[in-house]
């Protein structure tokens, strides 16, 4: 008696070819050499229109600011200015804070590459003995800095507060002394690679 073999062809459904295969071992993975890496191009702007914490007030007079407002224009300036990022660090228990305040700027770069590479030759004959994998970071062909600025300061508290007595959310005990302002604009040309590897 012939076994019943039903032949079913459904044109609209493509069936994958399932096969009983075992996992590929690491030695199977070794085929032709493949270099690999990525090239990055881009730009980032730090606080182009202020930040998430302080809204820009309409005047540069601290007495008129609400509890969530701060202007970073120089004292005496008429127009208010949106604030950049603020970074604070305390080196001593109960100590004061080192602060980088009003960090702003636009940085754009092109030609930054990242890849892994096996070095076993070159480097004045050091390569043969080295014989290891490194992460090779190709420095960007150009790095444009546009109106980058920050202020180095010291403060007695972690958080900035409005010192003006009577203003909303004010804390008259807050002190921050700005030591120096830094500004940078221009193009940095770099060449070469940075190699990073575990010891």
């Amino acid at each position: 008696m012939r076994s019943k073999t039903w032949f079913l062809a459904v044109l609209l459904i493509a069936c994958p070819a399932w096969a009983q295969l075992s996992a590929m071992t690491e030695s199977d993975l070794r085929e032709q050499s493949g270099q690999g890496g990525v090239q990055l191009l881009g730009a980032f702007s730090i606080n182009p229109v202020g930040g998430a914490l302080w809204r820009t007030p309409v005047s540069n007079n601290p007495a008129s600011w609400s509890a969530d407002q701060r202007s970073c224009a120089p004292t005496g300036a008429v127009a208010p200015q949106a604030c950049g990022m603020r970074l604070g660090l305390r080196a001593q228990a109960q100590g004061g804070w080192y602060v980088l305040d009003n960090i702003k700027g636009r940085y754009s770069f092109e030609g930054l590459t990242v890849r892994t590479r096996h070095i076993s030759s070159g480097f004045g004959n050091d390569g043969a003995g080295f014989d290891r994998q490194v992460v090779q970071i190709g420095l960007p062909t150009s790095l444009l800095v546009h109106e980058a600025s920050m202020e180095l300061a010291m403060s007695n508290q972690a958080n900035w507060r409005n010192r003006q007595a009577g203003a909303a959310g004010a804390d008259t005990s807050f002190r921050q002394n700005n030591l120096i302002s830094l500004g940078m604009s221009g193009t940095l040309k770099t060449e070469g690679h940075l190699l990073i590897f575990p010891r």
Partner: protein
Amino acid sequence: MDTCKLATTSRTMTGLWLCFAGMAHAMVPLSDNSLAEVAGQNGVSLVIDGATWSASSIEHTQDGESLRLKGVSARPVQGHAGVTTVRIDTLANGVHMSLSAPQTEYRIDDIVLGTGLQGFGGLRSFANVNAAVGIRSLTPSINASLEPAGLASDLGFALSGSVQVGQGTAYWRHGPYDLITKGLRLGVTFADATFKWPDTASGQDFNLTFQDVAITAGMSGMTLDLAEGDPTPGQMATPLMQDERDPRALAGTQGVSADVNWHLAQGSAFLTDNDKHLWIQGLRSHGSGNITLDMTRRCSTGVVTCFDGSVSDPSTGQYNGHFDGLRVGFNDVVGSYSLEDIRFGSSPSPLEGETEQKLFAGIYDATLNGHATLLPGGKAGDGLRFNADLWTSNFDLTPASDAQGEGIWLSDTHSRMHFRHGSVDVTEAGLEIHKGEHWSRLDINDARLGSRATGKSFGRIMFKTYELDSSITLATGGSGTVCAGALAGSAGDCTSAGGTWQDFGDQGLSARPKTIFVQDNSPQSFVNGVVMNEKRNQFAFETNRRLGSDGKAVNGSGTQMVLDNFWTSDDKVGDPLANQHGLQVDVGIDIAPTVVVSKVAPHTQSQALGFAINGRLSFKEMVAERLQALHPTGGAQTVIHGLRMQNADVRFNLTATPIN
């Protein structure tokens, strides 16, 4: 030419006529339209009122194993007007049948394997069925006249029609609980499905071929009935008479357990974004394990040997508590997943990919244990809520390596994740996943550069997180139009502000993760100067470990840097605990033309395709309590006694292109 015709002029003709071999017939097959029109005047109509059938047991035995369906039956549903009507009409060369059955209960009391101690549970479904099928005979082969008398090849009949199952409700009874699927509908429409008789001469068996099949299916939702048993004992719930009591008690001995085993030898995936394509090739996966499906309930008060959701069984140190809902359990599900190659291109063919990279990435031998317990109903309206505890252990992960298997490896990695009161919703913003209360730990025992097992190690990395109300929203659309390098809303304003206007189309991926890290204020427990609290945000990096007797590095024997207890905050005057903004990232990902710059002067630029990532990162405040330095015998010293970052709103545009 003779034609084989039914005597359609006769008003008493019924039945099925086939034209046998031996005659060469030039018959023209009737089209569907013709079939619909030619309805016999005097077909047969059968009206079945209230018919019921049942079988106490249907058993299938094979190789000593048996699958038994107990208590199989069908009966009309009370409260529904219903008679089942079957109608048969004759046609020129075939027959048309239609069936209309009203709401009928189709029932299997239990599905058991083997001895019957364990069952899959019972299934009851309520549905209307409507079917209409036309059957016509097929043209016999032209060579039939040359063959000896008897059945010829290519003889059989063709079916066209549709089957529609609608207004369906299915109850899967598991222990005392029901999983209810509502609004079930299934429609199958087929044209010219042919069935051919076996051809003894050519050795061909039965042959069934479908030319055109359209299948539609859907359901409107699933719910759980965690009330024990039935409202009135013996009278089970129906769509007209639902069970609305309060639930109690635990799961029984029913449920579904599946031992799974899978191999994907070679697969590929294809993504399109406004006519630009990404192929991911060489997808491989294999694995095995056990997956269970149960309905469970939290413990009721007074019950002794039961572990409620947030309580762990002290003897195992694991979260094996029960939550309300449909529990998907994972027991030692070991799997490996990898890919080999990515290509970008503007033509639809992968062979014409413009940029290609042999990138090996994968996760190997990941053992998954734990559960995810699901409840219907998301944060707002429909959707899904979940509680989950998932451990993935002993795996190796490579985000990038080459064909020799050399690259970046995260070896001997363990991960654990816990979610309480999470939810998944589809809103106008996209797919929103809320993590609820979430804590996790990632232990990478060796971050290696080189080969998987012997590559030199950077050291050990440990990362713990503790979050409340974090979420991620996923949507389509990508970045849309972007002014790269300046802030402007239109092409003209952008160029005059010194930026570059780019249009990434209306396709692509948008992702908006919002992560709210929470400060840990609970009593601290230390080991060697490091706080070991589980629900705490902490990052540790250890190097210079000594090797143990088994040749593996001993954790805790080296020097460590620990960033201990970090969190986000709203820095709200007068409300120090306000923490709603968190760390927000808003990113669009597209496949787009990019520019690749030659590393050698004069740094010529060339066109390529790659990923374009545009976005914005913001937070009000991020705080870290301290940075510690640890010596294995000297103990812990705090190096930095506080870190604060405030008022961030960073905009970024980045393109990434694979290079060879």
